[in-house]
């Protein structure tokens, strides 16, 4: 792994092999992130393509963020939150579901196969289920191969508009 980290933060080289898919998973802190922890504690082997980004609530996941991930080279994006009715913030996952449903329907217009996006529920106690989700999602995206995103930036890419900068 001698050259593993040479790519600078603003650099060009890609970590890992070029032909491997990369997936991003947005996980809510209270249920799914804990579920993934449980899968780890139980040593449940999983495909390695997924990278987890922790968010407080699946309701924090902006569709623009998902599009941004595709734009940055994600071959698939997974969002996982608490089960309906179990949301730590009561209703955050309902909002998430509504928005992300819409997003899923829009994806083909950006040239992204809908299979590359998945929204699911995993609770803190469902380590086994989490491992299955990862395996299934990876298996679903793998045959599609790498995404060559051509959709352009969806209107006003979220980052540039940030309030705290």
């Amino acid at each position, binding site marked *: *792994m001698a050259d593993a*980290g040479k790519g600078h*933060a603003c650099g060009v080289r890609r*970590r890992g092999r070029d032909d491997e898919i990369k997936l991003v998973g947005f996980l809510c802190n209270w249920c799914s992130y804990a579920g993934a922890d449980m899968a780890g504690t139980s040593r449940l082997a999983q495909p390695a393509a997924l990278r987890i980004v922790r968010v*407080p609530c699946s309701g924090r996941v902006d569709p623009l963020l998902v599009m*941004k991930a595709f734009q940055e080279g994600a071959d698939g994006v997974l969002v996982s939150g608490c089960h309906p009715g179990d949301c730590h913030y009561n209703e955050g996952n309902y909002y998430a579901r509504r928005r992300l449903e819409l997003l899923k329907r829009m994806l083909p217009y950006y040239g992204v196969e809908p299979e590359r996006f998945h929204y699911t529920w995993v609770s803190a106690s469902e380590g086994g289920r989490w491992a299955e989700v990862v395996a299934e999602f990876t298996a679903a995206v793998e045959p599609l191969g790498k995404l060559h995103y051509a959709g352009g930036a969806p209107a006003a890419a979220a980052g540039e508009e*940030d309030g705290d900068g």
Partner: protein
Amino acid sequence: MRIGVFVCQCGTNIAATVDTEAVAEAAMSMRDVYHAESIQYSCSDPGQRQVIAAAHQHRLDRVVIAACSPRMHETTFQRAVIQAGINPFMLEMVNIREQCSWIHEDREVATTKAIDLVAAGVARVRGQVPLKRGRVPVVGEALVVGGGIAGIQAALDIADAGMPVTLVEREPTIGGNMARLDKTFPTLDCSSCILTPRMVELKHHENIRLMVSSEVTAVRGYIGNFEVDIRKKATCVDEEKCTGCRICEEKCPSRAPDEFNAGVGESKAISIAFPQAVPLVAALRKEHCRQFIKGKCGVCKKVCPADAVDYEQEDELHTEKFGAIIVATGYRLFDWEGAYPDYGGGLYPDVITSLQYERMLSASGPTGGHIVRPSDGREPRDIVFLSCVGSRAESVGRPFCCNVGCMYIAKQAIQTREHLPDSRCYVFYMDVRACGKGYEEVYRRAQVEAGAVYLRGRVGKIYPRGDKLVVMGTDTLIGDQVEIETDLVVLAVGFAAAEGAGELARRLNIAYDGYQFFTESHPKLRPVETTTGGIFLAGACQGPKDIPASVAQASAAAAKAIRLLSREDLETSPMVAEVNHMRCIGCFKCAEVCPYNAIEKQKLHDGRTVAVIIESLCQGCGLCNVACPPQVISLRGYTDNQLISEVVEVLR
């Protein structure tokens, strides 16, 4: 900006699969990283000391720990970096154990992934700013709304803990529905024997201020700092002067419905609901009083020996501050008449509700404890009970279980046998729900000792035949129709939320369900909290409940309130949302989605109305961040920039 990265080996837990040295080396080439090293056990004391020392040595201002899940040790390392003089929010934990070493086998793959994750952590901490927990002072007094058994219990618990409490009750007396009951399951002890002492204790408690005939009309503020408007309605009786002699009631010529007795019997325009009322003062109902309808009477004023009657009395408006609020507004019976034309819809005098029956059983009730048919005053021989009226019936929009019907039917059947040894009770039921401690025993007693005949099935029709009632039902166990010609029918009518519960909820900004029962914050783990900080629930206002459950919940709510009131001020999480006021367009899409009502409107000097976040209420869910059309809200710690930079790094 000087970032230090510490890659934990966790013994071999991580190091066996991830090349921690390589990860550290890779980290060194990341922007703003001035130090990176691999540590054997970072959470151990020596490990923590190593981090602190490195921080000093390299003048670090941000720290990334690549180790186990933040859910495991985030606080451990927050404490460590504080010792190194670094703001605890400038720490980022990267999970390379649960998410990496423990779930992968291939060392190369795992190491690459670990580097990705570390890069994301570095990117994220780079966007972090020092945050400070806020503090808000707490008003040390509690408000309890509703004076049923739940409200009484909660008020006493808080007052006993030495904190002042105001109890606001809408009726002229406290006691709620329990005061109307005769005996109470599971032990079948007398309701007023156990309730009255508490009511009296409450009245005389030095820490409790009792406001009857009063209602909450507006609520402002937030946890620790509520400002509440309370309207005390004019009852035309001076509470200080009235001695409760009831002479006025005796002499008053105007009849009025007797709500306390659930419509069994009649009352007067000026009256005291029941002999054990607290406070024991009369109240005048203007809508039934001649003095107010016709402008002449004045009898009560004349006869009152204490000169307590005052027709000129006006409503009083009080505004008070409280740190915590407990809502305990209880229930009423579902309005069954319109929903059940098949049961006569209220037309048959001998079809009564269980609460009316309860009043009849009560020795202090309108019939002096005699069970009689309202139509002709005769003692009934056969009595049919119907469970689940207005409960478990989607067709009338009431799918839920009333939770107490089965038990009070059993109780009433036992009592009926005691009152009328020759009588027989028939109970139509679907399931008998007797799940509490000692409950099944009561149900069995009703069957075995009191000889109640349980018929498994529902009733389709009730109609009069002469002076009797014909009940047409089914016994599903035998699979045939059953008809019972009976003297009296008692309906176990389901629970509905208290009158005006929805309105009160809107004033308090708490959530309620489609039946206007208030919604708890989490059905299992936060059963007495509401989604609004500082407001708690007790008793049947949250859902159908019996007395033991109401009291337990009341004490739990009191404990939560005490916990809050015992603090001088409140620490707030800094990971809250923030609005860029310059660019807010005042659309309030954010406020629509906020589950905690943490967003307020504020008028700026330039005339614009913008959103402001009340930090003590915001729980940091980030819904508003996503909802804001011009994207001018950001959630601290999870800003768009931070999340995007993380995404960029893991995908590199």
